[in-house]
Structures are given as structure tokens and as C-alpha cells.
């Protein structure tokens, strides 16, 4: 039984990338349009698949497809999605076309209104084919049910992103790119050791995830392998103290790339924690919960506080994301139905919210040519539309009730607060402490908004044009999603919950009661 | 009584090795290497006598051949360098650095 959905889903962008790369010189426009078309096709396919999901067969993973890849290593090309993977794949499928639109002009030399060059002219075809390759890999990494395959995508994803940052980013791009690559590579290699170790210790001669769940019993071994995986993921989903690459990368990357970086790539980290760290090494996960939650809380607070101090828009957004990832990690390791469902939901919403925020900021910067908040002011008088979208995105960032991120953040906190996973009230404390971040979030977002949008109109800002059609087309759907899921998160939760339950079962957290309540939410 | 020969060959080998490490004239260094090879020959022949089989003596033949080949190649190289730099000192060959 193997369905072709996921292979096709990954093949389409790859083919698209090849075609785009092979286009004759000077056909930049064609390249852009083709890329957009391809990404839209992928989006459509994803949605169709998503709607078939509930009815599709397969208990844990649906749309499974397993082919032998390297028999002598026991490696398969195994793909399949559960609820968690599905929503994340959907997230990437949604974001890519938006990013394509958003970075329409990124590659052909971005000029501000007064004609100062922000990023020089670069090869357009390369940029967009890299984008498509990246999309294929993002889908692959979430869909992989073979740990080896997951690792391969996990590492290979770096390369296109590396080139996107390195060749198309801002002034500091090469520094940022190298920092990004080396951090991730290092983590990845540690994970490689753990992967090999898992393979050897399990001695099952296969990398298929389902067959490896619950195989490792010895706690000591579990701890070592867990560490290998977790460090890699912690670097990926920047968790304090290994977060330092993110602000640089996000600030230097072109807005589009930044969206994918923060919106999707980093989710691989939290996704990995949820899928692999927990289910493969439950004992270790429980043993390490406390320290990890502490780290999560630290990064929540730390990210928020540092964000307040930022003068650079993109860096600020990057730090807010660190804070948000703190929430997600906390939710994941609180190990209650609600918290994990919330965390998963948070991954999606954060993707939309931060994406919108980055893009809006990107449009501002594209007009002014400077990422410094101080250079703006009174934008809303000149470009009300832009200001409006920026505001909504920001509010989503501070998870205002009624906006999607509120739901998830609330679920995470509640879930953590009431998590019975550990008798002690430690998690409760953690939840309470993390609540402080809500206030801080209000501070950094609103202060930025106030400095950038309100107040007297700065001289260069007067020249601003408001959003054009393309840019509206970029922001509108995101805002729509934010608001939509803000009021009606159920469809997502319905998909997510069973998967989370399954996870908890594998982790052997015995609290059906909470599970019920979470499902009811 | 083969012990004496072994000690001798050991000494020769050590002298050769030290020479290679200490001496600076390429030709001398090279001669030290040859000395080491001869030490090997001595050891081989001694052991051949000790074990009462001919292998060691045959090996000595081959080692001689190799030594001869090394001489030819080595002298060619060193002479070329010498003609280029008018000096056969290993220290003067210092263009290749980290």
C-alpha cells in the first residue's frame, strides 16, 4: 500500500526547479511566473490532500509510501503524514507562493524610492529554483517516516537556504550565511552520530520510524541518543543558549527567505523534538523535561527582553520568534495533550504571524532602505494600508485574543500549567513565569508599532507609496488566515489532536483525563 | 652470538636515523638513509642465520636493488636542486611553508 501523494508533492517543485534553472538567459519574468505557478500547483495539491486526510487510510501515518533506497544500510525512501506533519506541510505549501510573490523583485536589485541600492542584481533563475528546491525539501523533511531520510533532508535543506542568504542577503550576508550553516551543520552531525547509534543499538537493520519506536529500552543509551537529537533540534529551533545564529541570519536574509527560515525551517527543530525525541526516547525525555523547560522559559523571557532593546526591525522580529519558540518547546515538553496540541498549533500560527510581520517589515524596508526603526515614523499617514497590515501582523505577534496565535499560546500555557505529567508544580511555575512574556510582548510590539507607524512623519517617509496589488496579494491571505484561525482553530486541532494523542501514548504519559479535555477544546 | 650483530645493526640504524634528523646536507642525509637500509640488511641476514632459512639473505638482495634504485633517483633529484641553488643544504629548501 503506497500512495503517490507525497512523492508527487515533492517531485513537482523539484521538476519546476530544474525547468526554471534551465530557462534561457534573460527570461527572468518567465522564471518568476513559472515558479509562482508551480508553487500554486503544490498548494492546491496539498489542500486536496489535506481534505482527503481524515478519510484516508492508515492508522498513524497516512498517504504512506515506502521504497527501498539503500538496502544495505536499511534506508528507505519512506514518507507519510500524521496530523502534525500535515499541518506543517500545509504551512510551507501556503507560505511558498506568498514568498514568491513577496520576493518578486528581490533578485533583480532592490532599490528604494530614492534609488539607493539595497541588494545588487543577482541571478533570478537561481534564486527561484533554489526556492523551489527548498520547498521540496521542506515537504520532504516533514513527510519523512524514515529517520535517515529525515536526516538527509534536515541537512540538505541548509544548502539552498545557505545560498539564498549568502548571495541574496544584505550587507553582512556571507557572515550570516556561514554562521547559519555551521551552527546547523554541527548540530546535524551530532544528530548523525545519534542516528547511527540508534541504528546500531536497535540492531533492527532499518531506519523506519514506526519500527524503531519503543525499541531502545536502556535508559542510559536513551539519554545519550536523546542528547544527540535534542542538541541538533535545539540549534535548529533556536533555543537559548544556541540561538545566536538566528538574528543574524534572519536580519541578513531577504525578506522572503527570512519568512521561510523562521516560519518553516525552524519548525523542523520543534517538530523533530515532538516526533523523534519524545517518541523514540520517552524515558530520556521525561528525565530531561525539567532542564529543557527551564531553557524554554529562559528563551521566552530572554527573547522578549532582548527584542525590546532592538533597533533593527528584522532582528527584533527574530528575537520575538526566539521567545515564541520558547513557548513551543515548553508546550512540547509539558507532555500534556493540550500543551502539545497547542505547541503544534503554535508552529502553524507562528508561521503565519511572523511571516506576515517579516513581509510587512520587508515592504517598509524596501521603501526606506533601512531596517532601523528610528528611520521611520508616521507611516500610517502616508501608507495606511501598509501600516494597517503591519499593525495586524504585530498584534498577531503579541497573540492578541481573536488572532490565531492567541489560541495556541493560551493552550500551551494552560496545558503546561495543568500538566499532571510531573507531580510537582514545577510546570505550573514555568507556565506562570512564561506568562510574564505576554506583557513583554505587548511592550516590544506596540513600542515598535508606535515608533514606526505613528508620530510625526519622518522626511523620507513622505515619499512612501502605499502597498501595490502584488504586496496586498502577499499580505491579505496571511492576515485572513491569522484572523480565520483566530476564531475557528477547530479544523486544525481536529487534525492535530489524534496525532498528539498517539505521541503521548508512545511517550506513555498516562493521563487520559487531560487528553479528553484537550480534545474538547 | 647473533645478538652482537643485532646490536650492531640497531646502532647503525640509530646512527642513520639521527643523521637524517641532524645533518643538513641533502647528500649526507641521503647517505644516512642508505646506512639505515644497510642496517636492515644486516638484521635480515643475521635473522636468516638465526632461523636457519635463506629468506633473509634473499631479502637482502632485493633491498640492495631498491637501495640502488633509490640512489639513482635520489642523486638525480638532489643534483638538480644543487644545480638550481648552488647548495645542497636542506635548510635552503624553504620555499614550501604553511
Amino acid at each position, binding site marked *: 500500500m503506497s500512495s503517490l501523494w507525497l512523492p508527487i508533492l515533492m517531485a513537482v517543485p523539484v521538476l519546476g526547479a530544474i525547468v526554471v534553472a534551465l530557462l534561457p538567459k534573460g527570461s527572468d519574468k518567465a522564471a518568476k511566473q513559472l515558479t509562482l505557478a508551480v508553487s500554486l500547483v503544490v498548494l492546491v495539491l496539498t489542500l486536496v490532500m489535506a481534505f482527503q486526510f481524515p478519510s484516508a487510510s492508515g492508522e498513524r501515518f497516512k498517504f504512506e509510501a515506502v521504497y527501498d533506497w539503500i538496502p544495505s544500510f536499511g534506508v528507505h525512501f519512506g514518507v507519510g503524514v500524521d496530523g502534525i506533519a500535515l499541518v506543517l506541510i500545509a504551512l510551507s505549501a501556503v507560505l511558498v507562493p506568498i514568498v514568491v510573490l513577496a520576493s518578486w523583485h528581490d533578485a533583480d536589485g532592490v532599490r528604494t524610492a530614492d534609488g539607493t541600492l539595497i541588494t545588487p542584481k543577482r541571478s533570478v533563475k537561481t534564486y527561484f529554483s533554489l526556492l523551489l528546491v527548498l520547498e521540496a525539501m521542506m515537504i520532504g523533511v516533514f513527510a519523512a517516516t524514515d529517520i535517515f531520510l529525515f536526516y538527509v533532508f534536515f541537512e540538505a535543506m541548509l544548502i539552498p537556504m545557505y545560498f539564498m542568504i549568502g548571495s541574496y542577503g544584505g550587507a553582512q550576508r556571507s557572515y550570516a550565511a556561514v554562521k547559519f550553516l555551521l551552527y546547523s551543520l554541527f548540530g546535524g552531525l551530532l544528530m548523525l552520530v545519534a542516528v547511527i547509534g540508534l541504528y546500531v543499538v536497535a540492531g533492527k537493520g532499518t531506519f523506519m520510524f514506526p519500527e524503531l519506536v519503543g525499541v531502545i529500552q536502556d535508559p542510559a543509551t536513551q539519554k545519550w541518543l536523546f542528547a544527540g537529537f535534542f542538541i541538533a533540534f535545539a540549534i535548529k529551533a533556536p533555543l537559548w543558549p544556541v540561538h545566536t545564529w538566528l538574528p543574524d541570519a534572519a536580519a541578513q536574509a531577504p525578506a522572503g527567505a527570512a519568512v521561510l527560515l523562521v516560519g518553516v525551517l525552524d519548525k523542523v527543530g520543534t517538530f523533530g523534538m515532538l516526533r523523534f525525541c519524545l517518541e523514540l526516547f520517552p524515558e530520556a525525555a521525561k528525565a530531561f523535561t525539567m532542564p529543557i523547560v527551564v531553557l524554554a522559559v529562559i528563551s521566552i523571557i530572554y527573547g522578549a527582553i532582548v527584542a525590546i532593546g532592538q533597533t533593527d526591525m528584522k532582528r527584533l522580529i527574530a528575537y520575538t520568534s526566539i521567545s515564541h519558540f520558547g513557548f513551543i518547546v515548553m508546550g512540547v515538553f509539558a507532555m500534556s495533550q493540550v500543551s502539545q496540541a497547542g505547541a503544534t498549533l503554535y508552529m502553524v500560527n507562528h508561521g503565519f504571524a511572523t511571516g506576515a510581520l517579516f513581509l510587512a517589515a520587508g515592504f517598509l524596508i524596501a521603501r526606506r532602505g533601512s531596517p532601523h526603526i528610528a528611520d521611520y515614523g508616521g507611516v500610517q499617514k502616508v501608507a495606511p494600508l501598509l501600516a494597517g497590515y503591519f499593525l495586524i501582523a504585530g498584534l498577531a505577534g503579541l497573540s492578541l485574543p481573536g488572532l490565531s496565535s492567541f489560541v495556541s499560546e493560551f493552550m500551551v500555557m494552560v496545558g503546561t500549567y495543568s500538566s499532571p505529567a510531573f507531580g510537582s508544580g514545577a510546570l505550573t511555575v514555568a507556565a506562570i513565569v512564561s506568562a510574564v512574556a505576554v506583557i513583554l510582548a505587548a511592550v516590544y510590539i506596540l513600542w515598535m508599532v508606535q515608533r514606526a507607524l505613528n508620530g510625526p512623519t519622518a522626511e523620507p517617509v513622505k515619499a512612501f507609496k502605499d502597498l501595490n496589488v502584488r504586496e496586498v496579494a502577499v499580505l491579505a491571505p496571511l492576515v485572513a488566515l491569522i484572523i480565520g484561525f483566530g476564531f475557528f482553530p477547530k479544523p486544525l486541532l481536529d487534525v492535530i489532536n489524534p496525532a498528539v494523542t498517539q505521541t503521548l501514548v508512545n511517550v506513555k504519559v498516562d493521563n487520559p483525563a487531560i487528553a479528553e479535555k484537550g480534545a474538547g477544546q | 652470538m647473533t645478538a652482537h650483530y643485532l646490536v650492531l645493526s640497531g646502532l647503525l640504524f640509530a646512527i642513520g636515523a639521527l643523521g637524517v634528523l641532524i645533518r643538513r646536507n641533502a647528500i649526507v642525509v641521503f647517505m644516512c638513509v642508505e646506512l639505515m637500509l644497510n642496517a636492515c640488511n644486516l638484521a635480515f641476514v643475521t635473522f636468516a642465520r638465526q632461523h636457519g632459512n635463506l629468506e633473509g639473505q634473499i631479502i637482502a*638482495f632485493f633491498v*640492495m*636493488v631498491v637501495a*640502488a*634504485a633509490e*640512489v*639513482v633517483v635520489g*642523486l638525480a633529484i638532489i*643534483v638538480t636542486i644543487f644545480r638550481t641553488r648552488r647548495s645542497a643544504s636542506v635548510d635552503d629548501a624553504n620555499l614550501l611553508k604553511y
Partner: protein
Amino acid sequence: MDLYVPILVLAVLAGGFAIFSVAIAPFTGPKRWNRAKLDAYECGIEPTPQPVGGGRFPLKYMVTAMLFIVFDIEIIFLYPWAVSFAPLKNDVGSVLSSGLGVFALVEMLLFIVTVLVAYAYVWRRKGLDWD
């Protein structure tokens, strides 16, 4: 080992004689100092002092030396071959050990062919010419 004792004895005799004659030479002869005598003899022209460690000489000699080494080694291989090629018979004529036989012939042919190839190369590269 005592095969070499006689050689040792002879060596002692010869060495004694040689060293003796070198040693007494200064005392038997007269001493008439003369600066010209102490110079290197170069048919009367001003002698060119050789640098310490010997003067430089034509590379040709080195080439010859190399060739000598190579061919001498070849000889080293020919001798044992020649000796063990013959079947070893005792005085009565019964065979103690059959020689290496035709195999040895083949191998030596190959060996000599190889050497001849190198030889031809050297020859063509004027390695054997003096002019």
C-alpha cells in the same frame, strides 16, 4: 667463520707492511724545504686551489657511477642464478638437487630483457657516450 682466519692473517701481514712503509717514509728520506715542492703540481702554472671537500667535477662521472650500480646489482642476481642453475651432483654423478630448471631460464630471460630495455634507453639518451 674460521674460513676467514687465513684472510685475517694475510691482512695483518699486508697491513703491517703498508703502514710500516708509510710510517717510516718521512724518516728515511732527506728534508730540503722548498715552497714550490709543497704546491700541487700543475705543470708549472699557478696551482688552482681546490675547495675543501674536493672540487666540482663533470656530472658524467656520477652518471657512470649510477649505471655501474645498476648493472652491478644485475650481476648480483646473475651469480646465484648461475650457481643454482646447474643441478648439484656429487662425485659419483648422482643428482643431489635438480637445478631450478627451465623456469629459471625463463625468468632470467625476462630479467635480462628488462635490463636490456633500460640499457637501450640509456644508450639512446647518450648515457654511454663520452665526447
